[in-house]
């Protein structure tokens, strides 16, 4: 069963316990200055954004069909069936296609390192694969970030909107965006206010490249046969012309 996180912005109090827990879990530095940084970076995998006393978390969405996983030429990024999108640094060659492809702009890079890694939230794979919840969910004091089965969380989110329609934007972000994500968001203010674009396609992005790539196995033999055929025709034409020329020449001799 695929796991997911449900973040309900209306329950969030901006205590930043999720940030601190995330830093601790991923062995990242964390202090008051980093707490003030309202964006994800190579040393901060999740950030709580605030705007007019409204809050919103940003973290890797751990897509159901991640663009980053599909584009990685060396399979350094992988989607686990439990939900987390994980990264194996020692496979990575640093092409940064994952960064270019991610619609949410999540993967960050260690630009100052001579042996740089891609950094992002990986949804605490060690914990989730061992049946525990993510560090951020475990440390959330208000239940704003909740860990659970994706289907159940979607039902719960629907119920929350139904029970309190005035409190919520009537949209669960992440159910359908780019084919669905393992992070689901509820908010009282439009998602765009915090940089979540709502104009994303509903189909998974990897489909678009796969539609082209899947034709290659057919294309190669077809190409060989077509090109080989053209080669045969153009050279055969020459051979025939030469043979006919010889015949004409001989016919001319016999006439004399």
């Amino acid at each position: 069963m695929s796991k997911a996180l449900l973040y309900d912005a209306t329950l969030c109090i901006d205590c930043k316990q999720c940030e601190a827990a995330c830093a601790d879990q991923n062995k990242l530095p964390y202090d008051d200055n980093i707490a003030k940084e309202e964006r994800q970076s190579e040393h901060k995998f999740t950030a709580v954004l605030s705007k007019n006393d409204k809050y919103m978390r940003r973290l890797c969405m751990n897509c159901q069909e991640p663009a980053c996983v599909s584009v990685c030429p060396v399979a350094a990024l992988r989607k686990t069936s439990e939900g987390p999108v994980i990264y194996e640094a020692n496979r990575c060659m640093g092409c940064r296609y994952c960064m270019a492809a991610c619609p949410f702009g999540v993967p960050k890079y260690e630009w100052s390192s001579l042996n740089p890694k891609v950094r992002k939230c990986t949804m605490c794979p060690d914990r989730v694969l061992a049946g525990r919840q993510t560090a951020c969910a475990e440390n959330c004091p208000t239940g704003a970030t909740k860990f659970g089965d994706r289907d159940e969380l979607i039902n719960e989110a629907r119920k929350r909107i139904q029970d309190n329609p005035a409190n919520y934007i009537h949209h669960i972000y992440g159910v359908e965006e780019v084919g669905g994500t393992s992070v689901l968001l509820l908010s009282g203010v439009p998602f765009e206010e915090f940089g979540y674009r709502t104009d994303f396609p509903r189909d998974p992005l990897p489909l678009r490249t796969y539609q082209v790539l899947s034709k290659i196995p057919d294309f190669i033999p077809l190409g060989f046969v077509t090109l080989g055929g053209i080669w045969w025709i153009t050279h055969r034409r020459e051979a025939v012309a030469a043979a006919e020329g010889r015949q004409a020449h001989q016919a001319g001799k016999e006439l004399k």
Partner: protein
Amino acid sequence: MKIKFTFWKAVFLLIVAAGAYGTFVRFFRGLGASTNLSDQFPWGIWIGFDVLCGVMLAAGGFTLTAAVHILNIQRLKPIVRPTILTAFLGYVLVSVALLFDLGRPYNIWHPLIMRNPHSVMFEVAYCVMLYTTVLALEFSPIVLERFNLQKPLKVVKAVLIPLVLLGVILSTLHQSSLGTLYLIMPTKLHPFWYTPLLPVFFFLSAIAVGLAMTIFESSMSSKHFGRELELPILQELGRVLLVVLTVYAILRFEDLLHRGVFHQLLVAGYERNLFLLEIVLALVLPLTLLAIPKIRQSAGGLYLAAVSVVLGFITNRLNVSITGMETAAGLHYVPKWTEIAITGAIIAVGFALFALAVNYLPIFPEHREAAGPEAPVAAKAAVLSHAGD
């Protein structure tokens, strides 16, 4: 041997010195210190120019070998060798440029054993690797002839046709795949350039640029190596170029029309200006020039049209990879001087290697008898004068 110190040699050394310093910064201080790349803008000119344009500019290799060996157009034979040389050098330099751009260049071999067939990049990596090998083999007869190694020469000539077929197929795949790379970014790439037809456009334009580069090169080398211009051959290429450009232009127009992008041209802006520049250079100007028989048949007209096509499609590749990405990234990317210095040095080295090869190997038909070490050094310096192009 006495080496004369000319102006262009000085320029060449200057470019290479700047590139060497850039290389030091890149490999001892990292990508952050040597580039203006960022988390919002992870691909710059090393991908947009060195890789996308580099591979496109080397497309003459497969276009010409296909024309001569598969379509059996023997008239074009005299210009196959310089074209293969350009293509081979081009692909080698693209690979070198990749070593600069990759964050972990020592892992460049990983796709050999760590496969992800769903990745366009994986497919490109394989095709480029295999095609560079094919080009090396297609190029090898020139070296083998030079040293009169008859036995290996016989072997290569025996497998030449399958090699050419393989080269054309690999080129079709990766030239189009460089466009497919961007199909996964519908939310980022500007609608002027994002279209499901990207792979088709990249492939067709590679053929056009392959032809244009061949015309450009022949004109250049006739000037700098004191050779006679193969005008009838170039006229023929010009005619084919006209056809390819026309097909491309119709498809591009249809695509823009069907996606309803034209009304965006009414809004003044940075993207629109660069889009128009691309369309004028790549299509309007060369199509006009080539459509007029008198211009199409003149050496000067052909040269101008070819240069325009090359510049136009360089603009296209930079638009797809850089201009079209900036709004979504929310920033304006300008390459750092080290990025430009390294790109410049790679181009300069390419020109120098081309000149060296022409001097020491039987590349041009009339050289095949008389290739010797005393070939003019001045020719090299003259070619270098275009290193900054």
